[in-house]
């Protein structure tokens, strides 16, 4: 069977080995679907305000854009990627997926009410457990957290972080304050203690500008250049010594591209050599720290012309950094078959499944 990602070939022609998909999306179909997981207080609160849900998802993924959902993955009445049945039909079955990691970006980071946001976050996590994790053994998921409140983050991680279906904690790529800052270090300790992964994923509050120069006017600016936000967060986490303090912490960069990181690393290594004394807790080059503590999903691929792409792939430097993702249901126009053809068989095997298996302890 040919899926939307494989227009010219089949899954078996592309790859006969195991597939682990580290980034598939679960969309909350509507605020009412969270009501079973909310206290009456918050249901009443929502009804009183005639609130239809957070605006962030539509901001980052305009509903009728193919960036939000490929045409062939739009089920008609229901929102795209809003049920496990759709995920099975579109990804799990045709791709023969062994494991898929479900990420839900519902945009609750946009809410300022601390208790309402925390209640909704808990509702999303309970919804993920009931409607996704408990319905298909192949699924694992990222738990979501109240993105403005470190204490509430820790509370939520303690509440559901030991559920065997959760392998990751979702951190949007934009935030009010950079993720490396010290107020979050205890959050990372809770995550590392449970052997969970930090999933740095596209999204986040509109109050967090996508670049140091402020806001973009167009989706193409925002989405196409979002790697700047990712790079800023990665820089912050490394410079602030997160991995000195919590040596076991692992971070996945999801839907953030990956070809920027070698260039970033060359620059950071140069600067670190002369500015090292300012951050004396960094006892080795930043790119070395990144290689040990970060992995990157392959959607989007950032692929240029094949002959240039093979050179750029060599910059990545080893076979361990990349993990396959479809980013269902988003459209990226990446040619996965051409991409794999640039890799050695061993690199293909690691990328399609084995890097994710060891990273997420699957």
């Amino acid at each position, binding site marked *: 069977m040919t899926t939307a990602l494989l227009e010219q070939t089949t899954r078996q022609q592309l790859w006969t080995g195991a597939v682990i998909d580290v980034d598939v999306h679960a969309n909350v179909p509507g605020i009412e679907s969270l009501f079973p997981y909310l206290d009456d207080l918050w249901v009443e609160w929502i009804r009183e305000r005639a609130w239809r849900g957070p605006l962030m998802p539509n901001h980052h993924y305009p509903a009728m854009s193919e960036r939000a959902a490929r045409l062939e993955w739009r089920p008609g009445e229901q929102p795209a990627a809003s049920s496990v049945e759709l995920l099975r039909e579109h990804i799990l079955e045709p791709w023969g997926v062994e494991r898929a990691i479900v990420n839900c970006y519902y945009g609750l980071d946009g809410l300022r009410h601390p208790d309402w946001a925390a209640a909704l976050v808990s509702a999303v996590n309970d919804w993920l457990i009931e409607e996704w994790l408990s319905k298909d053994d192949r699924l694992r998921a990222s738990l979501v957290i109240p993105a403005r409140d470190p204490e509430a983050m820790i509370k939520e991680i303690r509440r559901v972080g030991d559920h065997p279906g959760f392998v990751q904690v979702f951190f949007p790529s934009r935030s009010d304050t950079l993720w490396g800052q010290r107020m979050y270090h205890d959050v990372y300790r809770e995550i590392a203690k449970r052997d969970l992964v930090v999933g740095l994923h596209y999204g986040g509050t509109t109050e967090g500008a996508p670049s140091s120069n402020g806001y973009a006017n167009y989706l193409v600016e925002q989405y196409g250049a979002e790697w700047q936000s990712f790079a800023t967060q990665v820089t912050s986490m490394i410079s602030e010594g997160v991995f000195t303090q919590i040596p076991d912490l692992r971070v996945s960069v999801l839907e953030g591209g990956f070809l920027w990181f070698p260039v970033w690393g060359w620059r950071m290594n140069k600067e*670190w050599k*002369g500015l090292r004394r300012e951050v004396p807790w960094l006892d080795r080059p930043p790119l070395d720290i990144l290689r040990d503590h970060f992995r990157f999903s392959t959607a989007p691929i950032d692929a240029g012309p094949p002959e240039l792409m093979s*050179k750029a792939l060599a910059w990545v*430097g080893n076979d361990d950094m990349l993990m396959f993702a479809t980013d269902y249901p988003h459209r990226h126009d990446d040619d996965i078959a051409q991409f794999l053809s640039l890799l050695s068989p061993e690199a293909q095997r690691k990328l399609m499944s084995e890097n994710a298996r060891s990273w997420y302890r699957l």
Partner: protein
Amino acid sequence: MRVAGTKLVVGRADDFKDGDRITVEAGNGRQIVVFRQNGGFHALLNRCPHRGAQLCKGRFIANITSDAVGEYVFHGENRLLACPWHGWEFDIATGQSYFDPVGTRARPFAVQLESGESVREELESGEASYTPAEYAAHVGAGPDDGPQPGPYRAETYEVSVEEDYVVVSLRPARPARPPRPVPTIKEEAIG
């Protein structure tokens, strides 16, 4: 100057104030910078292992280490020499860098104080360098202004057997380091 020799007499120890530095020619095109820093004498090849900048133009800075984020240990003895170009730091006693202690180091030379009597031969044959003060007077520049032609062949260099002289032990020039290995990349990916 006896290039093939093993010791280079730089000058009288008492002529060096703390913080002074002097750059001398050591044969084979090599320059050596000699420092008096924190009372001790140290010598480095006057060439940063990175891009060849003159280390004699570097400034001394304190090392700062850390056992945890937010904890600073300030090593106030200013024994790190920062290269003037990119700020890479080298321990003046060992040449060791801190960002890459194994792969990158400036080249140190041993410095001893020897009596005038023991270096009489070098001094009388004119194979001694200037003191920093003599250097400055001769070239009309401060001792921090980088390497100058030298050493001056003092025809009538006054030997004072009661005083100590700063002597750098020379070693043969080190062969060039082979290029560092590049990360393994896949044949297929290179195409």
